């Protein structure tokens, strides 16, 4: 058996020896994301947008006179697998920084790796608040507005509604819990007479909707807060439509205005739902140019994941230009003081928590028979600055986690 080990190590060393580089070493970025497994349905458009950003940068002569190379790795939805890739990317491929991730636990695992090994990690899509707050540190930055921001935006709009009896349904894990808790806490601050008549926490990616919709109908809430996503949301939306729940209840959905969640439903999407999302079809310039480029390149319109991928890599590229270096410490310093130009306007990464000020769009859904899908109308862009907590609050969260 030891002989097998020996053969194996020889094989392993052959397989993992990186090719030798000549002059003009490219800038290498390790990108880890869930290209298979539970989140695979969301990561393809993200990847296409990243590739677009990279081609643009290389088309313009690269960065610091060097070519940009992105090494994509599939974490299979598993944090342990993501760490293996991080080790490979840093040790063998000598990447200059890490980026990506979709699932919160994968993002947290990679972030902790970045902290341990002092590697820059720009988290793209994970929504967990812990990434920039309780578990935040010098080497991790995060692009997307987290559950706290999105929940708060929705609560501020929902507080204007007359509804008092609320219920919620969300996946039974951290994302679902936090998406609800921040919303509910803010709503109760603004409108103390609201009451909770039912809460439901089905297992992630295994929703059997009939029983939940039946139970919600019996609890007769005036308004319902939904943090389901992916296949759970699709199953729930059809069942709730069939059983008339959407007609009886006002619905609020976190993220559900994103084309990722509206498009698959076609004209079955509920109307008049208050959502955060991404109305790519009606955001003015300079965003228009992004839509046109993406559509021309891929043959389909962008979704929220694509925008996040593009903004993530725009941030990285602009930081490299500003730092005039790929040194980790200099990149961190550059990102902390940089104003990143993006298709949706300038954003900054707050120096004390590294959370970007990218915001989200809050609006209501409306079926658009001409397009065959529902779209967001009456929307307003809420910049991150308006809902993010102050520095003192971030400090408190980090202290409490110690």
């Amino acid at each position: 058996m030891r002989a097998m080990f020996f053969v194996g190590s020889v094989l392993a060393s052959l397989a993992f020896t990186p090719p030798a580089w000549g002059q003009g070493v490219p800038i290498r970025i390790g990108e880890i994301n869930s290209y298979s497994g539970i989140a695979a349905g969301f990561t393809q458009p993200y990847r296409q947008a990243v590739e677009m950003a990279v081609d643009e940068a290389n088309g313009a002569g690269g960065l610091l006179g060097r070519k940009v190379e992105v090494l994509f790795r599939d974490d299979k939805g598993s944090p342990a697998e993501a760490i293996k890739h991080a080790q490979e990317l840093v040790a063998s491929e000598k990447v200059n920084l890490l980026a990506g991730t979709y699932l919160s636990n994968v993002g947290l695992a990679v972030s902790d790796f970045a902290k341990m090994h002092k590697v820059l990690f720009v988290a793209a899509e994970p929504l967990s608040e812990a990434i920039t707050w309780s578990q935040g540190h010098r080497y991790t930055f995060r692009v997307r507005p987290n559950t706290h921001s999105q929940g708060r935006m929705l609560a501020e709009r929902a507080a204007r509604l007359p509804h008092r009896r609320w219920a919620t349904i969300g996946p039974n894990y951290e994302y679902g819990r936090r998406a609800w808790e921040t919303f509910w806490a803010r709503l109760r601050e603004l409108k103390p007479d609201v009451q909770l008549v039912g809460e439901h926490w089905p297992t992630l990616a295994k929703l059997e909707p009939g029983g939940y919709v039946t139970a919600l109908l019996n609890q007769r809430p005036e308004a319902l807060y939904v943090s389901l996503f992916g296949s759970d949301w699709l199953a729930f939306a059809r069942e709730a439509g069939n059983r008339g729940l959407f007609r009886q209840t006002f619905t609020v959905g976190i993220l559900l205005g994103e084309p990722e969640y509206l498009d698959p439903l076609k004209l079955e999407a509920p109307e008049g739902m208050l959502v955060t999302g991404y109305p790519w079809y009606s955001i003015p310039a300079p965003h228009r140019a992004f839509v046109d480029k993406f559509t021309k390149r891929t043959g389909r319109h962008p979704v929220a994941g694509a925008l996040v991928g593009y903004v993530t890599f725009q941030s990285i590229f602009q930081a490299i230009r500003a730092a005039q270096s790929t040194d980790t410490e200099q990149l961190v310093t550059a990102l902390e003081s940089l104003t990143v130009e993006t298709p949706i306007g300038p954003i900054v990464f707050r120096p004390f928590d590294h959370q970007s000020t990218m915001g989200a769009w809050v609006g209501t859904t409306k079926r658009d028979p001409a397009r065959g899908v529902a779209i967001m109308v009456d929307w307003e862009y809420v910049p991150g600055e308006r809902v993010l907590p102050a520095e003192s609050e971030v400090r408190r969260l980090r202290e409490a986690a110690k």
Partner: protein
Amino acid sequence: MIAILLQILSGLTHAMILFLIASGLSLIFGVTRTINFAHGSFYMLAAYLTLSLGSALPLGWLGVYAAMVVASAIVALLGGLVEVCFLRRVYRSPELYQLLLTFALVLVIGDAVKFFWGSEHRIGLRPPGLEGSVPLLGQLVPTYDLAVLTVGPAVALGLWCLLHRTRWGILLRAAASDREMVAALGVSQAPLFTGAFVVGSWLAGLAGALQVPRQPLTNVMDAAIIVEAFVVVVIGGMGNVFGAFLGAVLLGVLQSLGILWLPREFHLVLVFLLMAAVLILRPWGLLGRPAPPPAEAGGMEPTPGPFTPPRWAMAVGGLALLVAPLLIPTFAVWVLVEILAFALFAGSLQLLVGTGGMISFGHAAYFGLGAYGAALLLKHGGVAMPAAFLGGPVLAGLAALAFGYFCVRLRGIPFAMLTLACAQIAYAVVHQWYDVTGGDNGLLGIWPAPFLAPAARYYYLALTAGAGGLLLLQRITGSPFGLTLRAARDQALRCEAIGVDVRSHHLLAFLVAGAFAGLGGSVFAFLKGSVFPEYLSVSMSVESLVTILLGGIHRLAGAPVGALLFKVLDTVVTLHTEYWQAVLGLVLLLAVLAFPKGVMGFLGPRRRVRGGGRG
């Protein structure tokens, strides 16, 4: 009251789908003794086929229903084909090799679906004519649900007629209760087995097709249903189609009622608590009959004894392992550490499955709890890293003792399913106990102490734990205790008769295996720097089984060999293709067909050491 009736009604619809898929699983298991992981893949394939055919068939409103019929027929044929081409070749191997084969099929079919239909979620077709809802007890109930509620019992009735009123069905039932007797009476088994696969796969296909108007289609819908289907089969009684009906109704209704009353923490684990309760009270399931006593070794080929590699190989291998970190790149060192962790994990499982004949489907619980034990001691206990490292196996061992107390009362498949239930209960506790375990966000910052942090140093720690642990396991296998375990595996009744307390031997084996798996978990935790509930998941348990099956189930050396092959293959393939599942699956498929007893089983038998030998 009406609320409860409505809740039951909505649970019943899901129960019908569960029944269809579980009855097929049960039929296949009953007749061929194959644990068919690929059953969920057939279900998924039929759903996607229905989606495509439904919009392609030029039949107007009939199109969707015709697509359901055609899709389930295609899947039925595919099931037959799989039986004829692959499974038939491994019936003579140790029984678990069918499991490895069907696991390979899961991987291949999963990637085929991804390749042809993409990985984005798709909402199903609407059922023409049944799109609306009807008012019932003051609520609207989808018309299509009522249709599913009639199809389920109709299929059950049809199956009853098939199994009780046709000669073929009677032979099937006979084969399910006593295969050898049916063969001895001169009935050819091959067509029976193929038939069971065709009908069983058709049922899976029908379930998938019927789901299309109810559930969105995803690449992971196979994994989402298969475990639940197994639970239904076990609750109802393995091999009993009507048990599957009862089990499905019980599960569907309880889940639906649980929505009203159960606190959040229990939803993850409800089905497994139910299964555990049934297994403890009625190990053979609600409608199952106690299994006939296991075939005694009369006609069985003797299983090989412990196997010691030649001394020169040990020396060369040992030296290679010692100097490896000086010669190979850092990343390869990290991969070797992962292989060592898995070798230990798989080696401990080998003690249970290979030496003890106790098939565990939930061994990841102890691997994961080992990782959590170390992490909790480090984070909350304020213990230094080296001590926390050793604390992992202690927690894992304690958990193994507690769960093992219940598990070792059972044998065979009920034992396997109870270990699965225990693992899922442990998983749910870890997943939901946010204050202590961090829930699904896990525990971060579990890195080795600074003096052990460089790859080479941590490697030597892992090597000490991994190689040392395996040598100890080898020693235990060759000890009087290990030999008694083997004896109890082959001749349980005779062992009891000469006064061996088989149950306490099994419990001790469970404890030892749990502790060594926990040591593997400790190695893994500090390698990854964080621990997550995934470490206790079903897929981890399956991976450990695949590892020892690949390496060879009857030799401890199979564990490190399997871990090496599986991890190197997985790592290299994942680096080079998006379709790593398909490549991995095809390699496993070829491996099962080429080495039906595992790689070490192929190398080993002729070099048998007489008299059991010392480790």
